[in-house]
């Protein structure tokens, strides 16, 4: 057993490794074995994950015949033709702008009303506040598809079926329960003394909320926003059922349209370019969010 003697470095390493992963390591033989096993296993899985993605990226610069004739070769000529085709001929361009409108519209509404509601529910008790909280929980519990059929009729009778506005409202309602539930626990964990101090200094409730509480809740808001963004950006069942006008298609529907044309006529080059186009915004948001979240967490705790 290599670990029978007390290693004085172990405790330090464990604690500091948490905050500073690049901490220098003095290791025992056992650590080294586990270390190399870790890297081997983790590298293999990374390759399994990344290889198909890289393959898509490479293939998106090749012609369709090239993709099938020599799937693993580098492109003979790096060309953006596929991107142009995907954007125009396959309609990804207009699906992209539809998705931006719907997702950001819904995201703004969700974050604004969601944070307001969560704040009120977390801080005040009034007749019906518990009822609303439990309604929210119920909304979280039921899978969305169960609401789709009646939603179809609600939208139809309000003239919102197959419109972008209808999608914005549906997405908002769909993202609401999770948002409020998450922010509710977040606002509860924030100290109330600051809000009370602001009130004593004469700030109205609106100012207290928008200028004091909301900035304090930034890490929570960032987390919910990213989760909602990914969830709504990738949403498929809602639009395919409630948004059947091809002019208003969102990206997921655009991708599925490739599935419908199927078989041999499939323009694999354009398809791969389209895949890259759909993934990039989420990737960018994810990478930005990671940094921002870390920053705002430490900022929040220092105050």
């Amino acid at each position, binding site marked *: 057993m290599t*670990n*029978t003697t007390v290693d004085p470095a*172990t405790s330090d390493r*464990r604690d500091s*490794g*948490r905050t500073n992963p690049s901490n*220098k390591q003095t290791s025992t033989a056992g650590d080294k074995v*586990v*270390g190399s096993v*870790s890297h081997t296993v*983790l590298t293999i*899985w990374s390759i399994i*994950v990344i290889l*198909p*993605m890289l393959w898509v990226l490479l293939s998106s610069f090749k012609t369709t015949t090239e993709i099938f004739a020599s799937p693993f070769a580098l492109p003979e000529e790096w060309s953006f033709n596929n991107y142009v085709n995907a954007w125009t001929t396959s309609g990804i361009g207009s699906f992209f702008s539809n998705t931006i409108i719907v997702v950001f519209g819904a995201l703004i509404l969700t974050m604004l009303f969601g944070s307001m509601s969560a704040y*009120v529910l977390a801080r*005040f008790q*009034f007749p019906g506040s518990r009822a609303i909280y439990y309604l929210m929980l119920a*909304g*979280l*519990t039921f*899978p969305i*598809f*169960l*609401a*789709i*059929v*009646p939603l179809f*009729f*609600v939208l139809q009778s309000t003239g919102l079926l197959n419109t972008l506005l209808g999608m914005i409202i549906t997405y*908002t*309602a769909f993202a*609401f*329960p999770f948002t409020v539930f*998450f922010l509710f626990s*977040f606002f*509860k*964990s924030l*100290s109330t*003394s600051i809000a009370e101090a602001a009130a004593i200094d004469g700030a109205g409730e609106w100012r207290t909320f928008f200028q004091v509480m909301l900035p304090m809740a930034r*890490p*929570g808001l960032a*987390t919910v926003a990213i989760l909602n963004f*990914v969830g709504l950006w990738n949403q*498929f069942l809602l639009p*395919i059922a409630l948004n059947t006008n091809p002019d208003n298609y969102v*990206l997921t529907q655009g*991708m*599925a349209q*490739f*599935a*419908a044309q*199927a078989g041999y006529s499939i323009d694999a080059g354009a398809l791969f370019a389209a*895949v890259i186009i*759909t*993934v990039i915004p*989420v990737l960018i948001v994810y990478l930005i969010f990671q940094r921002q*979240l870390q920053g705002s*967490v430490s900022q929040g*705790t220092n105050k």
Partner: protein
Amino acid sequence: MSETIERAGSGMQAAQAPAPGGGGATRLARKRHSPDGWWPALFILPLAAGIGLFYLWPLLQSVYYSFTEWGVFGGSTWTGVENYVRLMQDPDVLRAIVNTLVYTGILLVGIPIAVVFAALLNRPGLRFAMIYRTCFFLPYIAMPTAISMVWRIIYNNDYGVINSTLRVVGIEGPAWISTEWFSLVAVAIVGLWMSIGFNMIILSAGLKGIPPELYEASAIDGAGKGRQFRSITVPLLTPSIFFLSVMTFIAGFQLFDMLYALLGPTNPVMPKTQSLVFLFYDAAFGANEKGYASAIGVLILLIIGLFTLVQFRLQRRWVHYAD
């Protein structure tokens, strides 16, 4: 059911957003009574209206619709339990339940795999941890319909990458996405490939909660790495593992996007591969039998509820809560 979400939600929060000043909830002041004026109601109104009209009212209506039949030009008639009787005799429904269970079962395999990966990834001082983490998470944030389209080409019988590679070494691979069972497993493998990243995020958060003193003490007592993994890491991760198994079940039972995009809605093997949600979608918007579709929806809800309940009952036997 609300308990599910409460735990799920807190697990989610622990995983995604370590709230500043963790202990805040306990020393939180009592809620203030009777706020000044009407403004809280004003804050809440859009929420209540939106949720009510576009979420909860439709949900209640769904249950009502499941007892009705819809004519071609709209208008419904009350038919009692007829839809449910039909449900129980429909071989497609039974097959869809089996398919959904098989798919979910394969997804569950991802949890132990992710436990091992997460334990390796979260060792203190591991280099490139951030790179690994980003790699692993990538398939989870990518659009499932887009990813499925890529895999559809990878799996393709004639020109797909898998089969053309197999052909080079002289093996004629199966028609992955148009053969019964193979098609379902093909979809599940992609699901597994996507879900491991998410599992690892949740488990990493769980690992951060294990006190390092436990490892130190056990090392003094002579425990090796393998023993520490079995006797400390896994038992103390059981709350996260439990959370994941509940979430995996709920997610697995809602399989739709990937099936649709990977196999294609008109794939001849679809009737033998379809999930419950696909059946629901097809009945509601393909066959335009909205009453019957609603009954399928209610059935899915009942199954999810039942499994969640069973999981909560069983958790006492294996989930270890620190407090």
